């Protein structure tokens, strides 16, 4: 039983990261119906930018671990958001009225471009975050040692997710985003600047991915230029699992995927872990093609 709870917390911690990355996919898909395949690589860029800023500015030496990490996260969020903005301008906006396949191909191209750019700038070797930034203490819950950092990570993920939910559902700009998601033409007629809304979405989505990259770097230590692919794939799965385009769906999908993986590894087979996750995905898509929570963008008029 203790092992079961241990695996549950393992799964929730990984799932929190999947969920955070999945949010970026879901937001972009919700508004543009475009699967941004470059999203995983924006996550990688976040991790590498974070390391460079951290070591070159010596943030945590000057202002202590907690403030340093927060400042670092803010800087990375801003920079990756900017990259997302530029990506939309150069790779997606010119293709907005083309068949959707063109945009998907463009997204794949952007992904390959980013991956190779990261390799050329930072090199092919895995890089390592400093080991001593986050506290190593573990909290004892029901007799298990849960590292404090995992709880902080899960908490940060949930907080960012809630912030995004608040933005899209309780604010005026959120209403504009939702309106553009339902019908861009009609939104334009209502006086919404759709281009600005899309640009904003492309800042927020990648920025969250970048934040996840910093978290992964700080916690796991090792980052490599190929890491975005696997995380991107998992997050994409999580987004579909929860219902792509649906923000709470991305949260649920991410956490669920993490838990399925951990329990699958524990009770069935480690080698079949990913196969089990994808089997669950296929089953859910057969039973409920819109994902667990459904795509709730267009149907609520």
């Amino acid at each position, binding site marked *: 039983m203790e*092992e079961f709870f*241990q*695996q549950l917390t*393992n*799964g929730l*911690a*990984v799932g929190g990261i999947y969920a955070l990355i999945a949010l970026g996919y879901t937001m972009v898909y919700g508004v543009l119906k475009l699967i941004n395949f470059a999203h995983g690589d924006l996550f990688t860029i976040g991790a590498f930018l974070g390391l460079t800023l951290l070591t070159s500015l010596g943030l945590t030496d000057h202002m202590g671990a907690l403030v340093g990490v927060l400042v670092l996260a803010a800087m990375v969020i801003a920079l990756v958001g900017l990259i997302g903005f530029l990506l939309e301008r150069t790779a997606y906006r010119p293709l907005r009225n083309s068949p959707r396949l063109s945009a998907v191909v463009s997204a794949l191209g952007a992904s390959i471009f980013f991956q*190779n750019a990261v*390799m050329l700038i930072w*090199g*092919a*070797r*895995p890089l*390592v975050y400093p*080991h001593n930034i986050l506290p*190593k203490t*573990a909290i004892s819950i029901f007799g298990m*040692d849960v*590292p404090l950092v995992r709880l902080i990570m899960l908490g940060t993920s949930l907080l960012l997710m809630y912030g995004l939910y608040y933005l899209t559902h309780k604010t005026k700009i959120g209403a504009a985003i939702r309106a553009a998601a339902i019908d861009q033409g009609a939104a334009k007629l209502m006086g919404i600047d759709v281009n600005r809304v899309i640009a904003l979405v492309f800042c927020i989505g990648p920025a969250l991915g970048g934040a996840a990259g910093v978290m*992964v770097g700080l916690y*796991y*230590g*090792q980052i*490599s230029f*190929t*890491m975005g*692919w*696997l995380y991107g794939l998992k997050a994409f799965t999580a987004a579909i699992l929860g219902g792509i385009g649906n923000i709470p769906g991305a949260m649920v999908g991410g956490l669920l995927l993490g838990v399925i*993986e*951990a329990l699958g*590894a*524990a009770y069935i*087979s*480690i*080698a079949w*872990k*990913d196969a089990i996750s994808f089997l669950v995905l296929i089953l859910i898509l057969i039973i409920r093609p819109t994902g667990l929570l459904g795509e709730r963008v267009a149907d609520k008029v």
Partner: protein
Amino acid sequence: MKKLIHALLLGLVLSLLMAGISWADTIKIGVQAPLTGKYASEGQDMKNIVDILAEKVNAAGGVNGKKVEIIAEDDAFDPKTAALAAQRLTTSGVVAVIGTYGSAITEAAQGIYDEAEVIQIATGSTMVRLTEKGMKNFFRTCPRDDAQGAAAAKIIKEFGSKRIAILHDNSSYSKGLAEETKALLDPSTIVFYDALTPGEQDYTAILTKVKGSNPDLLYFPGYYNEAGLLLRQKMEMKWDVPMLGGDATNNADLVKIAGVEAAKGFMFVGPPGVNDLDDPATKEFLATYQARFNAMPASIWSVFAGDAFNVTIEAIKQSGSTEPAKIAEYFHNGLKDFPSLTGTISFDAKGDRAGKFYRLSKVNEKGEFILQ
């Protein structure tokens, strides 16, 4: 507009001709390596090493009066790309190909070279099957998994383990090595045997499961990235079971990934590391490398590419020919204890490097690999 196109075409034809002329006088040696992709660092080290050696040969006047030209092709650590790279190299007129890293990748290219009668000298492909096929143009400067499996099994037995957990990563290299070792151990001592997915960052779920089987030794014959993460996460779980790795963990980046504290006490079975190479000529070479690239080659595997280049040059020199058949003949029958970067080199009848290689190393308190 038409004139411009004509001018461009003329220029293209001329430059091709020129290129043809300048190529005519060189001996072309191919390097197939993962220059991009997951193991790009290994591939880039391989190419850097071969480049330095080739420059040295050319500065000394070349071989048999001809300059050496290196043609590098990227296989991206991917079998499909490797087949394409092999096809490009065979059509570019190389006499021999050095590389590559990764057994499955070598296997994808092996048949293409053999059919084209081009010599291939693999440098980091240890899977047994590769030399059991009887290809007369295939050689390797790295050792083989069965030798390593035997060495690992011997060390595990000496270690006195009663409960052994074996974890591999499903790659042909890692799975092959795990099975070679497992076959030589008493089946009743193996309490856990399964595979993880390489490329992930969170292995706590897997470690939690392995811990449940309560082993007294964790054997992970996989690559250094995953080994580093396993060590680090094992420490964070406060689980202090000793861990033994295979030769692909013989990479200085392992300690960086795990952190010195977590890496301390980690053991691996492998050929000597870059730091253990104490031949004066090798040391001098490594100093050149260090000066140019600001770092040592991260692993011994890339240094094997230097060995492959050295023996190729020696074979061309001694046989006085650049015909692959004559070079292969020299490798099989002429080459005896040729001194190179990682020691002396001879090939056995199958094309494997002769001699024993494997030793146990341990990571000390400072994070250095110490031969035991």
